[in-house]
């Protein structure tokens, strides 16, 4: 698929500037990031257009000021909240990327259970070593429920799908980069 993408300009006087993109996976399975890799040779094209900040691709740990942030996964623990807040405060455009980020997705299947009961069953009620719920302050605490990211911060765009296809991601990103309203039509708009 070919998409013509005009070079982005940050202002009339400045020369072309690459957009900065950051990505992160909160409570997800990295399936959405795998789908990002499904861009295959278009990744090279993307690298021409954007520069990656924090992302599993670059291994940068904290994100600086960015144009676009892609968030995979839902909000399940306190660390997810911190990462999400960092993204929101640094990214001009924040995109919920995949079913987990959009709506809670698979991790939200635990929402019918009490989180205390889950912890107890896993750490206390089983035979084997331990018997205590870990309490190291290094460990993020679980939230009572799993939340979609737009219940915690403002989200600008949503890409549905579990995971969204590489084509859908490409269409979305190239739309945003080119300054178009990002839009997915059938058959790329899908929820499974």
């Amino acid at each position: 698929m070919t998409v013509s993408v005009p070079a982005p300009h940050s202002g009339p006087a400045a020369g072309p500037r690459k957009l900065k993109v950051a990505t992160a996976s909160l409570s997800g399975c990295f399936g959405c990031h795998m789908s990002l890799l499904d861009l295959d040779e278009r990744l090279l094209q993307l690298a021409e257009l954007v520069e990656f900040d924090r992302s599993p691709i670059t291994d940068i740990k904290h994100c600086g000021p960015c144009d676009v942030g892609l968030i995979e996964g839902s909000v399940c623990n306190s660390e997810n909240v911190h990462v999400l807040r960092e993204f929101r405060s640094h990214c001009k455009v924040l995109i919920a990327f995949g079913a987990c980020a959009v709506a809670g997705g698979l991790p939200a299947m635990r929402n019918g259970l009490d989180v205390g009961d889950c912890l107890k069953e896993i750490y206390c009620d089983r035979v084997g070593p331990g018997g205590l719920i870990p309490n190291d302050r290094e460990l993020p605490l679980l939230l009572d429920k799993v939340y979609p990211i737009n219940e915690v911060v403002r989200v600008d765009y949503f890409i549905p799908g579990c995971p969204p296809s590489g084509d859908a991601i490409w269409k979305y990103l190239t739309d945003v980069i080119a300054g178009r309203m990002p839009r997915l039509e059938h058959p790329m708009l899908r929820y499974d």
Partner: protein
Amino acid sequence: MTQPTPSLDQVLPPILARHGNDPTRLVQILRDAQDQLEYLAPDTVTALARALNIPRTRVESCVEFYAFLHDQPRGRFRILFSDNITDRMLGNQALFEHMLKRFHLAPGQVSEDGLVSVGLTSCTGMCDQGPALLINNMPITRLTPRRVDEICDLVQSGLPLADWPSHYFKVEDNIRRAEVLLGSGFRSGDALRAALARGPEAMLAELKRSNLRGRGGAGFTTGVKWELCRKARADIRYIVCNADEGEPGTFKDRVLLQSFAERVFEGMALAGFTVGARQGLLYLRAEYQYMMPHLLAVLERMRAAGLLGRAILGQVDFDFDIDIHLGAGAYVCGEETALIESLEGKAGRPRIRPPFPVTSGYLGKPTVVNNVETLCKATEIALHGGAWYEAQGTKQSTGTKILSVAGDCERPGLYEFPFGVHVSEVLAECGARNAIAVQVSGASGMCLSPEEFGRRIAFEDVPTAGAFMIFGPGRDMFEMALNFADFFAHESCGFCAPCRIGTGLVQKMMHKIAAGQGTRYEVNEMLRLRELMRTTAHCGLGQTAGNAVFDTLQKFRPAYDRRLQDTDFIPAIDLEAALARARAMAGRDDADAHLGAQA
């Protein structure tokens, strides 16, 4: 005085026998079983699956799907308050809370002695005589604090419902304005006789000439529908009368069935004669179960009079009879393909169309699905001809239309007007002064503001399935939109993602705004979701689920604005509180075990 619960071996065989051990009658079987067993326990489900030789999961999926089928005990008295916006405007919430308090119950909870549960349900079609409730599927209308106390006393006395004074269950017609359909005397058999004299081809020609359009909402031309069914190649055809009437604010079909049942059934027989069907099915919503004895008696009478059964009116090759199926509390079953699924004993999920029911409907056979009122209109055409009919109403919307008027007016009830009537005329006729809004055609319909009261009720301007809910001065239109957001989230069948998730999200956002936690962000999101549902949902339910929010945002924006916060965004949840449980479980209170309020 608790009766012992009868055993499965006693209860199930007669029910199964009555339904011929036919799995396509599963919904009816489950309803009958529940009537006697109070709820459908896992054992019952297993026994039915075995007896019908179908997977247990099929039975289970049915029980789970329908709001009126229960896999848990619901009490010997199951009370459900109708919770349409018109009930709310009449104060149902205070009555609901009063009853809960008297029984010391939470909503939906069953009392410890297994006597009673009290919950809410979608509109029960009693909007002109609300607030209303259902007790074991029997309606009680015009609730007052005193009436609620009396009901509580009766429940506590344990007196079986059948022995309660009958005046409690009186349902009024409230016909306020009658024209050809509600006004003219109807001699049972005349329409059918006229059709027989004409013959099916000529009857079809009259119907097409009349330009009659369906009254169930979509407005499809009835003549074309019948012709397609007649021409479809098949050995068997069916006529289905859609009496699901689940659209909040609509109650005209209830009155037609209550007081014009002969006409409805004759319309079905007429359709059978015209398209060549021998079997009719009336799909009656669970909320109207109280009419069952009456309807069955009418059918018997008509059989005795030779208007149903074999060789109708002496015509040797014309056999036609009607069976009644009860729904089980699912708005989506009004959608014709979901209705057919339900008739076939399955969960009522809309089918993929095409094929349309006219070629492949009930049991895969060509099927005409028509609204109750449409079938009544067909009898008018049989009697008076297409040209006569076409002269009434407007060019694209011929004939008269029955409106179910409720809300803030002096005389709620049924109003029959020729199509083309101005909204303002209806308001004047029912005694509604200074209305600030009219919601036409129910929760899925259109919200009109006073500037639009000059518009006309007709397919070419403001189409309607019949509901006409009036909002007087001082009403808060946000409350209406909130009520409808709850309705759609509850009624979404869950088959397709845009509707299943979209209605849930809209509901959450509306409640967030109601709680004073909303921002412009939620407003934009809801507009976006509305467009998404409108264009991508699988059936009409999802496609129209965002209409009320959209319309009220366009026309009653201040009702939203005064609830909105002026910031960019407020999280939907209290994150600090959301960590409390895990914090306590891990016994932590360090700085990292807390989340500040802001980013």
